[in-house]
Structure formats: structure tokens, C-alpha cells
């Protein structure tokens, strides 16, 4: 590849041909503002439509300003001289920003993205104090059809990050550029309500939207009301991936688990009991490992796919209705927790399930949709009443003046709080399968994995698709695949369609990297390195525990002894299993 000599703001630099002006400037620590540009949406896809023009720079001997994000330095650009902050470039950027803002509601104080908005940040950096252009505005009613994701297209700046992540990374294709000219929108087919589309509610669009155009639907108000209702017992469960992300908002080192402070913080908010979704993750493994062993023994209905991720289940139900029989019938840990809480635990407390409020803290938007599915309710009493995301919980902490830095550490309550390390890794791609394999080994061999054998390193890491052959017992080798990101899930499912015998067990998570990158996690703002830290945090949490096998969890053993009988029992089936429906309308 040819090297090209250029000069940026008077500093000489040699770059390989094909480097963009933006990338070259970043090598010199020269900051060029961007807005529509997003380098790493996931699975190697970026958003570089060069549509906003905020990154324009001046290039000598070129008549027009060049968008830095989309102008490659070619072999013919030897001696290119670039100026990133001339009067002309700065003036053009300011004009662009003012034009965008002239069609953007000036309601920052009441916006869900207040202080997390890239447009707001740029406006502040540019010191924009008034908008010269007063003209027509697009005002479009909000779409809150889905229980999970709120779309407020009046705030859309048409960067199309959401469309790119939805169609290219996730291959869900719920969004498109719709219409043309001033009234062009990034919207659903025919401007349908989101709930009627192929949307899986994975929330990756929420994670990358630079403004408040796409956010989660918040149930925080209802949670506060429940906490302040003396007639209700309010319990909370925390998903594995929350503990390695929540600290980021309170100045802890990114990715370092702050589990005990999280528990302390939740107590300070007034929850009657603080429990762990991890407990239900162990329970999921008891049921799922049992199902895997049954299916492996019978050789029927293989491969088996994990079913913990509601985004992926939504994807399957819409895009692959011919494969509805292959996921495990296990409910997700969130829903298993809800079902056990409203039966076993309510009975233990001697209270009516109606007076027990179950709140979930999830890294996820799709969990909100999952909790609202009619099959997860009894006489209109939902198993999980409210879902709040990691981000929303952070806001609750801040609203209540709870700073995790200053809060006393605390332990989860019993009996739904104890968990193994196998449950911690549910929050990262590969973790559910690894947790299941640990227990499958026990079920097949009648003994536990010892020492380092408990670590299935072949299925770890943030790659989109991982394959491995695992010898579970002499003569029993299982071919497994792990996919994260729905585009990767599609690849694996296409293989299953063509060659059903290639894999026997598959784990799929909707978000690239798994729940650590869920649609409800603190914003990465483009810093994909945070995922690596969160992943390490979860594996560290696992390794730090002496209890690393789900079937050794004493509280789980007690639950079966007292209530469920054994894995796969009729009662377990009634409470812990579900079935899937075609969602395409």
C-alpha cells in the first residue's frame, strides 16, 4: 500500500493511502467535530454517510470544503495540505449546526437525553447562543407503540446511525430513509408503529442515536410509586451485565464489578428485598442443561438454541418462523425469576402475588417488551411488573442522591439472591453456553469439572461468531456455535437451515458482545474498548467465586427440594418454560 505525505495544520504526516482526513487528524490528536459519523457500530460496521457536514475542513487547491469523515487520502493526494480550523471551515460548521438546530425542538431541559446528547454537546462547544434561521419545522407525533422503545422523530437529525445499525449490523431492517427532501425521515416501512414492524427492541439504535430521537420507554415513575406504596412489597432483581456497567456513571473504573455497592444502592432506594437475576440464571441452567442432555440423548430436535435473550427470540419469531421449535423452551432468567417470585416466594411471605411488585434492572430494552408478553402473566398479574435499564437506574440513584462511591457495601438477600459464577457470565457472549456446558458435564458424567477445566475458553471473546467442539464425555463430542449481534445470528441460522446436523448447541445474543453492550447500558459514545473491560469484569466475578457451577447453588437445590421437584418436572414446566409464536403480521 502506498504511503502518502500530507500536512495537517502545518504538521507533516505520512499515512497509508485510503486513510480518511478524519483518521489522519486523529493520529495527530487534532480534533475535528463529527455528528453523523460513528466508527464502530459493531461487527465491523460504521456509519459514514457524510450527511451532516459538521466535519468539513479546508483542503488547499480544492474549491469546496471536504467532509473529513468521508474524504480518503488517495495515492494522487501526495503533498495534500489540510487546514481543519480556518475561518471558512468554522463558519460552515456553525451554519450546519444552526440549520440542524433550527429544525430541532429546543426542549433540552425536559429531554431524556439531556447531558447525553451529541448535538447539545456540539452546540455548547460552538457556543451557539441564537439560531439565525427561523423556518419550517418537522413536528411528528411520538411513537410509543412498543412498550420498550420511544421514537420522537421531531428530534431526529437524519444521521441514519439507527438505520445502519438496524439493517447492517442486526439485519433486522425495521428502519429506512422515508420520503425525500425536507420532510425525509428515518422511519419504519410506511411510517407504521414500531410495534408492528420487524423490530426486535434490541435497542442498539437507542445506544447510537446522537439525540433524543430514540430512547427507552421509562417505567421509573411507576417504580417510585410502588416503592412509596405501603401496601406493596417491592423486590428487585439485577441482571449480570448491570454490575460491570453501573460503576461507569459514578466514577468507578469502567468494567470493574461494583456488585455490593449496587446492592447497597438499591437498598437505599427503598426496595424491600434485593435479589439477583443470577439466581434465576442458575435456575435456567438447571432446566436448560437438562433439556440439552435429553435432546442429545434422543438425538431429536437438534441443535438446541439458548433462549435467554428476548431480542434474539423476537428476531427468530419474525425472521425464521420455520425454526420456532429449536430454541430451548426455557423462559429467560428474568421471567423465571418473576414466575418463582410470584409463586414460591409470595407463598413463603404469605402474601397475595398482587401485592408483590417485581422490578428488574436490565441492560436491555427488549426485556421491557418480554415482561409485557401476555403469556408471562397470571390473571393480569405480571410475573415482572416493571423493567428499568442500567441507565435508568443510574438516574434513579442520582435523583435520590445515592452516590455509589459513598454507599456501604451490602449482600444480596436470601433465598433468591445466591448465585454461582456460571450465572455472572450470562451477561457476555458465550457465557450462557459455557454455564450450560459446566452443568451438562455433571449431568452426563455424574461428577464436576475440576480446576481449570471449568473454563471453556474456546467460546469466550467478543468475536461475532465462535465455533468449538467440546468433548463432554468419552465418545460424546458436541459441536457448538456462539453468535452475538443479530446479523451474526442470521448467518448461523442460515447454516442451521441448510445443514441442521452441523451444530448440536448454539447460543445467540442479540447485541454485539452480549448483554454488556445491551440497549439499556450506559452509553459507550463510540468507545468500544469499554466492552472489553465489561467482559473482563464478568469473567473476574466468575473466577472470584468458589461456587462456579449452577447445580451446586444451595438455594437452587432448596428450591427444587421444597417446591419444584426436579428439573423438567411438571411444575417446572408450568412455571419455567414457554413456547414461541410467529410474530410477522
Amino acid at each position, binding site marked *: 500500500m502506498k504511503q502518502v505525505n500530507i500536512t495537517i495544520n502545518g504538521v507533516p504526516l505520512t499515512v497509508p493511502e485510503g486513510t480518511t482526513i478524519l483518521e489522519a487528524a486523529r493520529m495527530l490528536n487534532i480534533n475535528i467535530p463529527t455528528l453523523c459519523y460513528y466508527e464502530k457500530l459493531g461487527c465491523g460496521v460504521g456509519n459514514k454517510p457524510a450527511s451532516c457536514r459538521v466535519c468539513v475542513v479546508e483542503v488547499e487547491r480544492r474549491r469546496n470544503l471536504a467532509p473529513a469523515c468521508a474524504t480518503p487520502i488517495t495515492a494522487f493526494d501526495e503533498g495534500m495540505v489540510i487546514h481543519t480550523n480556518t475561518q471558512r471551515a468554522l463558519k460552515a460548521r456553525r451554519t450546519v449546526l444552526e440549520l440542524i438546530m433550527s429544525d430541532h425542538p429546543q426542549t433540552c431541559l425536559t429531554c431524556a437525553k439531556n447531558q447525553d446528547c451529541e448535538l447539545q454537546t456540539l452546540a455548547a462547544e460552538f457556543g451557539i447562543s441564537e439560531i439565525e434561521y427561523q423556518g419550517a419545522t418537522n413536528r411528528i407525533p411520538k411513537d410509543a407503540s412498543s412498550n420498550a422503545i420511544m421514537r420522537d422523530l421531531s428530534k431526529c437529525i437524519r444521521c441514519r446511525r439507527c438505520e445502519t445499525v438496524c*439493517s447492517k449490523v442486526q439485519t*433486522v*431492517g425495521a428502519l*429506512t*430513509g*422515508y420520503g425525500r427532501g425536507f420532510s425525509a425521515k428515518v422511519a419504519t*416501512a*410506511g411510517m407504521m408503529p414500531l410495534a408492528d414492524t*420487524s423490530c426486535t427492541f434490541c435497542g442498539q439504535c437507542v445506544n447510537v442515536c446522537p439525540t433524543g430521537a430514540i430512547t427507552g420507554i421509562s417505567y421509573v415513575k411507576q417504580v417510585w410509586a410502588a416503592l412509596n406504596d405501603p401496601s406493596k412489597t417491592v423486590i428487585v432483581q439485577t441482571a449480570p451485565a448491570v454490575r460491570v456497567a453501573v460503576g461507569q456513571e459514578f466514577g468507578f473504573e469502567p468494567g470493574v464489578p461494583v456488585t455490593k455497592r449496587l446492592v447497597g444502592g438499591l437498598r437505599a432506594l427503598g426496595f424491600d428485598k434485593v435479589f439477583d437475576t443470577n439466581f434465576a440464571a442458575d435456575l435456567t441452567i438447571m432446566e436448560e442443561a437438562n433439556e440439552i442432555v435429553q435432546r442429545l440423548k434422543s438425538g431429536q430436535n437438534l441443535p438446541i438454541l439458548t433462549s435467554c435473550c428476548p431480542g434474539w427470540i423476537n428476531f427468530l419469531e419474525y425472521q425464521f418462523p420455520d425454526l420456532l421449535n429449536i430454541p430451548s423452551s426455557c423462559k429467560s432468567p428474568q421471567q423465571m425469576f418473576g414466575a418463582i417470585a410470584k409463586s414460591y416466594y409470595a407463598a413463603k411471605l404469605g402474601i397475595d402475588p398482587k401485592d408483590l411488585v417485581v422490578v428488574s434492572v436490565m441492560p436491555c430494552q427488549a426485556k421491557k417488551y418480554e415482561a409485557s408478553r401476555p403469556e408471562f402473566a397470571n390473571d393480569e398479574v405480571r410475573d415482572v411488573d416493571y423493567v428499568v435499564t442500567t441507565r435508568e437506574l443510574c438516574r434513579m440513584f442520582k435523583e435520590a442522591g445515592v452516590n455509589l462511591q459513598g454507599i456501604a457495601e451490602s449482600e444480596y438477600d436470601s433465598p433468591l439472591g445466591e448465585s454461582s459464577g456460571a450465572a455472572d457470565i450470562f451477561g457476555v457472549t458465550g457465557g450462557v453456553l459455557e454455564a450450560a456446558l459446566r452443568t451438562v458435564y455433571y449431568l452426563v458424567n455424574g461428577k464436576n469439572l475440576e480446576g481449570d477445566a471449568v473454563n471453556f475458553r474456546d467460546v469466550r471473546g467478543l468475536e461475532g461468531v465462535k465455533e468449538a467442539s467440546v468433548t463432554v464425555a468419552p465418545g460424546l463430542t458436541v459441536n457448538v456455535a456462539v453468535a452475538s449481534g443479530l446479523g451474526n445470528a442470521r448467518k448461523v441460522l442460515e447454516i442451521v437451515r441448510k445443514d441442521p446436523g452441523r451444530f448440536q448447541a448454539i447460543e445467540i445474543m442479540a447485541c454485539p458482545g452480549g448483554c454488556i453492550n445491551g440497549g439499556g447500558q450506559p452509553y459507550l459514545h463510540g468507545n468500544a474498548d469499554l466492552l472489553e473491560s465489561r467482559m473482563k469484569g464478568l469473567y473476574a466475578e466468575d473466577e472470584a467465586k468458589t461456587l462456579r457451577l449452577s447445580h451446586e447453588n444451595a438455594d437452587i437445590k432448596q428450591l427444587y427440594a421444597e417446591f419444584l421437584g426436579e428439573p423438567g418436572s411438571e411444575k417446572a414446566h408450568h412455571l419455567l418454560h414457554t413456547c414461541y409464536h410467529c410474530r410477522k403480521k
Partner: protein
Amino acid sequence: MCKNSLSPALADKFAALEAYIADLNITRDDARRRGRLIQVLHRAQQIFGYLPREVQCFVAEKMYLQEADVSGVVSFYNYFTTKPKGKYCINVCLGTACYVKGAEKVLSEIERVLGVKADTNPTEDGLFSVSALRCVGACGLAPVVMVNEKVYGKVTPAMAVEIINEYKQRG
């Protein structure tokens, strides 16, 4: 495909569209299938007269695209319509040349005579729908009116009424 109930009378039309798409030999992995979309939509609109959601979903499925991909293209091009059109589509050019030559008066007269507004529903008898468009490239003939494929030049409001009557008689 969308499970919307397809009227049996439409079955022939769907069959015709399916045959057209089948001839293109599009595969799931064909990166150029998006490039074929506009031509398929043209044919679909020729067959159905317009592109309702059922037709868009059908095209999406047969071409291995998402419904949103198809909807985005349909919404972008003026030519495509998601509403039924009359048997005769009257297009009045409102491009600069036609406009200064009095096209707006021609359009108002057509709207008055037919009792429908441009770019809304067709007339009750289903014969006519009226649209405004921008420049058909025949500025020397301004103002221009098109009825389906036929071009009329130097149209006055009175001529417009005559043209309408001519098509009314054809029925």
C-alpha cells in the same frame, strides 16, 4: 409474506408479478438485487395501479429484502404511489415553464370539473385521478398535461375540459 388477506381477484395480478420477478433469477446472496428493485416496483405498479402494503411486502419477500427497504424506495420516488389511481391519470406539469404559461389555472379548472384535489383520491367513478408533477421535459409545449402516457401541449383551461370529456366518453 404479510398475512394480510389477499382478495382472490388479485391472485392473477400477484401471479403475474411473481412470474416477472422469477424471470430475474434473483437469489438471496445477490448483492445487486437492490438495484433491481425499482424496475420490479415499476412493473408492480403497472400491474396493480398502485403499491399498497401487501404488494410491497410481496416484492420484499420475493426479492429477499426487508419491507422497510421497499417502503423507503417507494416513498422516495414521486412516480410510485401507495394509493389507488383512476383509470386515467391526469398529470399537470407545474415546472417553471408551464407554471409561467398558466398551468396553475389549468390545474384548478381540472380540479373544479372533476371535483377532486390533486394528489388525493381518484374521482368516485374511478375514472380519473389528478396529480401535479415537475417538468416532463417538453417545456416548448408549455403548459403540458399528460393523461397516462399521452402528452397534450399548450393546454388552456377550456382545452382541459375538452380532454376530460373525450376520456369520459371512452369510459
